[in-house]
């Protein structure tokens, strides 16, 4: 999956955050809508779309969307 597709799938897990706020360098945990449920959705999305297992710690250790993308690719 390309980075831009990953960003789109990432954005789809949110309900209210404007789509243009999602960029490679977005520090996602600073988004007001970010919650533990969003984190679970991201983990489930990565499993479903990329068949890779990420953990809650992986999410915590990633600052930007691209950080997480690169981490998933490295798995």
């Amino acid at each position: 999956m390309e980075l831009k597709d990953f960003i789109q799938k990432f954005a789809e897990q949110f309900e209210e955050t404007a789509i243009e706020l999602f960029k490679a360098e977005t520090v996602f945990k600073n988004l007001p809508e970010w919650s533990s449920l969003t984190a679970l959705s991201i983990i489930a999305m990565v499993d479903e779309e990329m068949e890779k297992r990420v953990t809650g710690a992986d999410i915590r250790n990633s600052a930007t969307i691209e950080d997480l993308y690169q981490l998933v690719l490295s798995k």
Partner: protein
Amino acid sequence: MYNPFSLEGKTILVTGASSGIGKATAIECSKMGARVIITGRNEIRLQETYNNLEKADHLMIVSDLSDDIGIKNIISQLPVLDGVVHCAGITNNLPFQFASREKLDEIMIVNFYAPVEITRQAIKTKKINKNSSIVFISSISGVFTSSVALSIYSASKGALNGLIKGLALDMAIKGIRVNSVNPGVVETNIFHSGVITDDQLEVEKKRYPLKRFGQPEEIAFAAIYLLSDASKWVTGTNLLIDGGFTLQ
């Protein structure tokens, strides 16, 4: 010594005995005098449980309950039982929109279909004595409450709850009692996949009035009560053990 909770002379099957609640239940049942038949998928961990059983003459069956062959393998080796504790279970913290049929099947096979089928085949092949006790380790989730991203796990435990009621009625004529233990979060490795972080578990722990999660032995003691003659008039019930969680 007077002990209405004794399991002396009883043969008890414990599934999921390689870890967590199943492991504790097997060990505690053996300490109460039972002969224990333990099953689990992981031979090394199951052997560790076996080595911790008190006294001798127990039996261990390495088997995967998620397919018919594994279930047949267990049934074929079973002696006649006086009790069963269904402990094998999995969870998946999955927001509902990701709960595909595949993910639902994964959970239902282990948490629901396997214990149903083992029970059915054991009864049909007369491997369960009259006046026996069947215990399902259920949950607070799906019966008393649920949590975010636990819909399909809750569904599997809710399904068990319905089964228990009907099964208790069907088995009453044989004097076989059917009950569940419904724990809140217990300290086991069920969260080992890391989807839920340790920090999140710490926050969850504080939501319990008794300010901690349960210990596996504390659930095993409830199973012992339901297996023993102390609960001879108890059938079709859900024994809630949750450190006060569902009071709130």
